[in-house]
C-alpha cells in the first residue's frame, strides 16, 4: 500500500528512471551486433583481466575491462541482455497465460474446478522454487526453451492465486448478476465481464514476473544449467566473476549492477501499474 501511494503519480522520477533503463538495455540487446564494441566470444590471452577504463592498464575499446579469457565484458553484457529479455518476455507471458486462465476458472466457477486447481497450487507451493527450476532444466535439457518452459511451469501459481481471489470477488458483484439476468452464458460473462476487471492485476504481476524470470535465468546460468556455455548470459558472467573475484572484481560488479537495475526497474513498473489501475488508490 505504502509503495503504491508513493508511485501513485504514475510518471514519478523513479518510473522515468526505471523505464529509461529498461529501454536502453532493451535497445542495446536488440541492436547488440551494432552496439557491442567487440566480439563477445573473441578470446585474447594478451588482453586477459584488463581493468575498466578509468583504471591504470585499461585498453581503449574495452570500456568495462575483460575477463580471465580476455573477452570484452561490455560486449558480453550487451549480448547477455538478449537472453535475459527473451526469457523475461517469453517466460513471464507463458506463466501469465497459464496461471491467469486457471485462476479465472477456479475463481469464477468455483466448486470442483476450484478445489482441484487449489490443491495443485498447494502442491506447487510446497516445492522450493529454485530447486524445482534446477530440477526441471536438468530434466528438460539445457537450452533457451527449457529455461522458459521451466519458469512458466513453476511461476504460473503466482498469477493463479491472485487472479483466483480477484475473480472470486468480482463474481459476487452486481454487474455479474445483471449480466446473468440479461441472458449471458457463464463463459461469456467470465471473458467479457470478469476478465477486463482482473486485467490490471495481471499486467502489474506480469511486470514483476519479468524481473523474477531474469533472476531465475541468472541463477540457472550460475549453476551452469541454462543456455549453452558459449553464449554469454548475465548469470554465466556472474559465475565467472565469482571465481575470479580476488583478481578481477569488475567481472562480478558490472553484471551485478546490470541485474539489480533491471530487476528494480521491472518491479517499479509493476508497482506503478498496480497503483495506476487500482480504482481504490486512484
Amino acid at each position: 500500500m505504502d509503495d503504491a501511494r508513493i508511485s501513485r503519480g504514475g510518471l514519478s522520477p523513479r518510473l522515468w528512471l526505471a523505464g529509461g533503463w529498461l529501454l536502453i538495455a532493451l535497445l542495446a540487446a536488440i541492436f547488440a551486433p551494432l552496439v557491442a564494441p567487440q566480439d563477445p566470444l573473441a578470446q585474447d590471452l594478451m588482453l586477459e583481466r584488463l581493468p575498466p577504463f578509468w583504471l591504470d592498464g585499461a585498453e581503449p575499446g574495452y570500456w568495462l575491462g575483460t575477463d580471465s579469457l580476455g573477452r570484452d565484458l561490455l560486449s558480453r553484457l550487451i549480448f547477455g541482455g538478449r537472453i535475459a529479455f527473451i526469457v523475461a518476455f517469453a517466460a513471464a507471458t507463458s506463466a501469465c497465460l497459464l496461471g491467469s486462465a486457471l485462476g479465472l476458472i477456479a475463481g469464477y466457477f468455483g466448486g470442483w474446478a476450484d478445489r482441484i486447481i487449489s490443491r495443485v497450487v498447494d502442491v506447487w507451493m510446497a516445492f522450493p522454487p529454485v530447486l524445482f527450476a534446477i530440477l526441471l532444466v536438468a530434466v528438460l535439457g539445457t537450452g533457451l526453451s527449457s529455461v522458459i518452459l521451466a519458469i512458466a511451469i513453476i511461476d504460473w501459481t503466482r498469477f493463479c492465486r491472485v487472479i483466483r481471489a480477484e475473480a472470486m470477488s468480482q463474481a459476487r458483484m452486481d454487474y455479474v448478476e445483471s449480466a446473468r439476468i440479461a441472458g449471458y452464458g457463464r463463459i461469456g460473462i467470465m471473458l467479457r465481464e470478469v476478465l477486463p476487471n482482473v486485467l490490471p492485476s495481471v499486467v502489474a504481476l506480469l511486470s514483476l514476473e519479468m524481473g523474477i524470470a531474469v533472476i531465475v535465468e541468472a541463477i540457472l546460468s550460475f549453476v551452469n544449467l541454462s543456455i549453452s556455455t558459449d553464449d554469454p548470459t548475465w548469470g554465466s558472467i556472474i559465475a565467472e566473476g565469482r571465481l575470479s573475484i580476488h583478481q578481477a572484481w569488475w567481472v562480478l560488479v558490472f553484471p551485478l549492477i546490470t541485474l539489480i537495475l533491471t530487476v528494480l526497474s521491472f518491479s517499479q513498473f509493476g508497482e506503478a501499474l498496480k497503483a495506476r489501475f487500482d480504482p481504490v488508490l486512484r
Partner: protein
Amino acid sequence: MLLQRFLVRLLTMLVTLFGVAIVVFVVIRVAPGDPIAMMLPPGASDDDIARLRALYGLDKTIVQQFFIWLGGVLHGDFGTSISLRQDVLGLVFNRLPATLELATVALLMAIALGATAAIVGARSRGTALEAGIDIASGATLSIPDFLWGLVLILLFGVLVPVFDISGRVSPELDLPFVTQFYLVESLLRLRFDLTWDLLKHMLMPAVALALPLAAIIAQLLKQSLKEVLDLDYVVLARVKGFSETQVILREALKNAALPTLTLVGVQFTFLIGGTVIVERLFSYEGLGNMAIDAVINRDLPLIQGIVLVFALLFVLINLAVDMMYALLNPRLRHG
C-alpha cells in the same frame, strides 16, 4: 473447533505431500539421461547395466516403482543415493541441521531488523524518515536473496574482508561435535570460540536471506501499527502520559503483530527455499547445496528424498502458523 481445524489441516497437508511425491517422482523419471549408464565405466556390458538397473528397481514400471518407493518411505527407507552410495535419509539428516540453523538465524535477523524499522517508521510517521524507510524497504524487497548474497560477497568478502564467504566452519578447526547442530552445540559446550567462527561463516548468507523478509515485515508491521495507533485504547494510553515509543512497544505492538505473524510464516518457507541457491553461493554445506549436486549427478533417490524433506518442512511451518494464528486470534478461539 480447534481440534477439527487441526485435523482438516493435517489431512490437507498429507494430500499435499502425496502430490509432491507424485510430481517429483514423475518429473525425474521422464528425464532423458540414464543414471545407471553414468555410474558405470564406458565399457560396461549390457548384462552389467541390466543387473544394476534391477538392483535400483529401475526395471519396473513407473507406477510399480512409485509404490515400492512410497512403501519404503513410510517405513523410513528413502533408498540409497546413486552418486554417494549411502542411505538417503542419513545423508539428508546429516545436512538438514546446517540448513535449519542458517534459516533460523536468518529468520531472527529478519524479525529484529524488520520490527525495528517498522517501529521507527511508525514512531516518526509522516516525516522524511518514514518516507526513507519506505523507499529503502521497497528497494530491499525487490532485490532477491541471490543478488544480496553477491553484493555482500563483494562488500565484506573482497572490499572489506571481515567475514568468511565460503563454507560453514574454518576447515583447520578441530570440532568436538557429536550432532550436526554445530551452532547450538557450540553454545551448549560453552565453546564460544567455535560459535564465533560459525557465526562469521553464517552471517553473510543469513543476511542475504534475511533482507527481503525484513523489508516485508517492516512494511506490513508499520502499516498495522499505524492503524492500531489511531484506536481509542492507544489514544487513552497516550493521554495517560506514556511516551510514543512506550505506547508502541507496550500497547500497539501486541495487537498489530497478528497479521505480520501469519505473513512471516508463509515468507519463512520462501526463505528456506532461498537457502538452496544462497548455500551454493557461499559454499555452505547444507541441504540445498547437496540438492544442486544431486540434480547435476542425476541422483534420483537423493533428489526425491531432499525435495520431500523440503516439502515436509514447508507444510509443517504452514500448519504451525495456522495453529498459532487460531490460538492467538480470539475470534477463532471462541469459535
